C-alpha cells in the first residue's frame, strides 16, 4: 500500500486553465503539506494543514487554494494557470513534528 499517493502523476495543460491535484495518506498522520519543486530542484513549502486546519500559508499566489476534506486528504486547486506554475508538486504528511513522508510528486507542465 502506498503511504502517500498523488493524482495525477503528470498534468499537461494550457495557460489560463484551472486544475486540481489530489493527495491521500493512509498513515493516520495529522499533518499534511504541499511543496513545490522548481526546475532547479529547489523545494519550498507552500501550505500545511493539521487536522484539516490551515497552519502554514507561505507567500503563494492566491490562485493556489488548498482544501482538506478530512485528515487523510489534502488537495491543491490552481486557478488561471501560468507558465511559471510548471513544476513538480509534492504532497507530504507527518505525525505532529516527526519526519515527513513524501508522495511521488505531480509533474505539472503549463503550455
Amino acid at each position, binding site marked *: 500500500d502506498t503511504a502517500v499517493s498523488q493524482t495525477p502523476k503528470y498534468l499537461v495543460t494550457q495557460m489560463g486553465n484551472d486544475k486540481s491535484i489530489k493527495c491521500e495518506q493512509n498513515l493516520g498522520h495529522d*499533518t499534511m503539506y504541499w511543496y513545490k519543486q522548481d526546475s532547479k530542484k*529547489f*523545494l519550498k*513549502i507552500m501550505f500545511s494543514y493539521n487536522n484539516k486546519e490551515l*497552519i502554514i500559508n507561505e507567500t503563494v499566489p492566491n490562485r493556489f487554494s488548498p482544501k482538506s476534506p478530512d485528515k487523510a486528504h489534502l488537495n491543491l486547486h490552481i486557478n488561471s494557470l501560468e507558465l511559471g506554475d510548471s513544476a513538480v508538486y509534492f504532497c507530504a504528511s*507527518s505525525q505532529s513534528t516527526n519526519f*515527513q*513522508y513524501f508522495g511521488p510528486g505531480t509533474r505539472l507542465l503549463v503550455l
Partner: protein
Amino acid sequence: AQSVTQPDIHITVSEGASLELRCNYSYGATPYLFWYVQSPGQGLQLLLKYFSGDTLVQGIKGFEAEFKRSQSSFNLRKPSVHWSDAAEYFCAVGGIILTGGGNKLTFGTGTQLKVEL
C-alpha cells in the same frame, strides 16, 4: 530564519569509494535535521534524521550522518558507494513547531551524486 546550505552542487565518486556530502544549517536552537534522497522521477525518501541524543545517526542503505553543533553541520557519509546510490540528496532543517502541530522544513538546494563504474 532557518536556512540550509549544501555547498556542493555536483559530486562524482567511483563505485566503492567513500562519500561525504556537506550540509550546513542556520537555526537559533537545537534543530531537527534530515537527509532525503530523490531518484530521478521519484519522490523524496528519508535516509536519516536527527532530533536529539547521539550525534552520530545511522540511516537506511548504509548511510550515516554526524551532527556537529559547533560547526552547524550535518554531513552525510557512506563508506562504500554503490552505483544505485546515484541520485539527488537533500539536507533539511526543521525546528519550528507550528501552532497546532507540524514541522516547517527548509531544504537545501541539493547535491547531485554521480557514481562512476
